[in-house]
């Protein structure tokens, strides 16, 4: 078991591009941390530097307080599950799992025990003598997991292990990995571009964009208190609506106004925004926090014309035009909206996020 610390971890390529820029992360023993971000954000590069597959340009990776920058992957006591699974096609499932232990000269009986134990956990016992080519995608995925767990490494590194599975299998395997984590109480570092995966599995999530760490926190923290506009837009599905507004005074009361939208600020928000009078504010509100026809009061009030209605069952996903903005809202099916109808969408003050339009940083949270 291991604590993994990334200290100013940087990857710079010869051409000058910086894939990972001073990444700092302290991963506790037994923690499940997800690195999440859009493709090309540097999350996989960061993982590969931890694994030792990619050279570290600057900074340090420490596993259990030992700097591993110059250690070979095999000496870092880690296991990795690849996006492509990377199973050895010429070996049986048994040998795929046993390979790492064989190379470490583990006694035969011990290997046998470990492999059968892993096969039992992952329900692979029937397939031990098969080659990967004769397995389904989900089974291959489990073999890849099995290969990692037989080694009992200090830390598991997973690079988008679910991205090649179909939707149903993905949900199933997601739960399986979560269970595995509870059972092994091992440190896991999990890379994904899918924020749903990150939200459902991670103890903590590190959001990365363009090589820079945006925010680290529990799923709830990221959802409720995104530190900047990128995190706000990336976490949550469908993603947050952003409305450009201006802070002004109306009858002595500070309020935000924009094209077809007004926000009556509560006292705390007004206090937080005091020195921004007359200036622009970027307002963010999640689709699931928008409602139709709630009573008057503080908060957001936005007029929009319904564009598209997507029926989801219990709810409806509404695309609406407000000025030249496209607003997405999730509303109760009972509201019974029609395309072309004009609606007033409302959101409570505590559901509103405010960002500086230039820096993108969060301004006020109540």
């Amino acid at each position: 078991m291991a604590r993994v610390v990334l200290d100013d971890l940087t990857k710079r390529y010869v051409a000058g591009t910086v894939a990972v820029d001073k990444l700092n992360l302290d991963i506790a023993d037994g923690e499940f941390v997800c690195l999440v971000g859009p493709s090309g954000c540097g999350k996989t590069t960061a993982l590969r530097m931890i694994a030792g597959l990619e050279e570290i340009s600057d900074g340090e990776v420490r596993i259990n307080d030992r700097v591993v920058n110059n250690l070979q992957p095999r000496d870092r006591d880690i296991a990795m599950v690849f996006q492509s699974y990377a199973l050895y096609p010429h070996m049986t499932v048994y040998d795929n799992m046993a390979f790492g232990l064989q190379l470490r000269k583990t006694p035969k009986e011990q290997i046998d025990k470990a492999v059968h134990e892993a096969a039992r956990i992952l329900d692979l016992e029937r397939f031990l003598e098969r080659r990967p080519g004769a397995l389904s995608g989900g089974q291959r995925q489990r073999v890849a997991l099995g290969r990692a767990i037989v080694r009992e490494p200090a830390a598991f590194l997973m690079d988008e292990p679910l991205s090649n599975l179909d939707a149903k299998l993905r949900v199933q395997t997601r739960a399986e990995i979560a269970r595995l984590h509870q059972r092994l109480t091992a440190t896991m570092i999990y890379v994904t571009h899918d924020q749903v995966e990150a939200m459902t599995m991670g103890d903590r999530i590190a959001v990365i964009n363009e090589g820079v760490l945006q925010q680290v926190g529990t799923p709830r923290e990221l959802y409720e208190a995104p530190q900047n506009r990128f995190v706000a837009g990336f976490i949550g599905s469908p993603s947050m609506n952003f409305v450009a507004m201006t802070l002004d005074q109306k009858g002595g009361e500070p309020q935000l106004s924009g094209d077809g939208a007004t926000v009556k600020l509560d006292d705390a928000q007004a206090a937080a925004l005091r020195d921004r009078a007359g200036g622009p504010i970027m307002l963010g509100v999640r689709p699931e926090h928008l409602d139709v026809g709630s009573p008057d009061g503080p908060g957001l009030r936005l007029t929009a014309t319904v564009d598209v209605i997507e029926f989801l069952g219990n709810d409806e996903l509404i695309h609406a035009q407000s000025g030249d903005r496209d607003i997405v809202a999730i509303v109760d099916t009972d509201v019974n909206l029609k395309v072309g109808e004009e609606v007033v969408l409302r959101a409570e003050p505590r559901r509103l996020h405010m960002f500086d339009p230039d820096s993108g940083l969060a301004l006020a949270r109540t």
Partner: protein
Amino acid sequence: MTTAAISAVPVRTGGWRSRLRRRRPVLNVVLALIAIFWLVPSIGLLVVSLRPESAFTQSGWWTVLTAPSRLTIQNYTTLFSQGLRPGGLLDSLITSAVITVPTTILVTSLSSLAAYSLVFGRWRGRDAVFLVVVALMVVPVQMALLPVASLYKLFGSATGFNPFGTVVGVVIFHVAFGLPFGIFLMRNFYNGIPRDLLEAGRIDGAGEWKLFRRVVLPLGVPAAASLAIFQFIWVWNDLLVALIFLGGNAHAPLTVFLFDQVRELASNYWIVSTGGIISIIVPLIVFFSFQRYFVRGMLAGAVK
């Protein structure tokens, strides 16, 4: 991959394939005729080798069709009964094997090693080196005969062992000229092996040698098998290099042995035909025993 291949087949049958199927009887007859035509010289050689020596001057081999009972294996028994006498058939067979087998093993293994380094190594200039290797493939053997001979002489005066005129010299020559193509073939095959597999191996704890032995080499078996077959046949059938480097040697390979039997006025046709058949049989055995290694879809299930 396999599912894609399976589903792709019925889609295509609508076009030229079904037309082909309708004409299949005609096509098969034509193909059979071409095949027979192609085989006539070899069949003739086989028949000549199975006829008594005296029959050669009296009638053509095709007359056997009217009297098949006159075939005999006497030529074979005569040739083999000469035993291991230097300059005899058995001796030249062994010499051929002594040249061909080490050459094949060396070229296949050295090419595999070089290709591993060219594909998976982490050193600068790999592509440049590979380009040079490819360029070397166009150097004709004939051009190098004299320079290599004088190199051997130089080596001889420096070390006291001149490889010229020895089996070792021939093997070195064949290995040197077999490597460019071997490296080319193996590199291109290894290039198709997903890098993830090696990275997985590195994390599993394998060093370069273990990666080569346990991961890359087994996956490269189909390419190595075809390289071995090519190499074996080329060297087995080589006359030029053997004639020049081993011409005066008491132990000559089969090709040189056969060449010696062809004389301007009275060739020993019974030896030429019998020896020719024997020299065909060996590569055939090699080919069919290596054939099972041409496993297609070796990489199925590696990734995705």
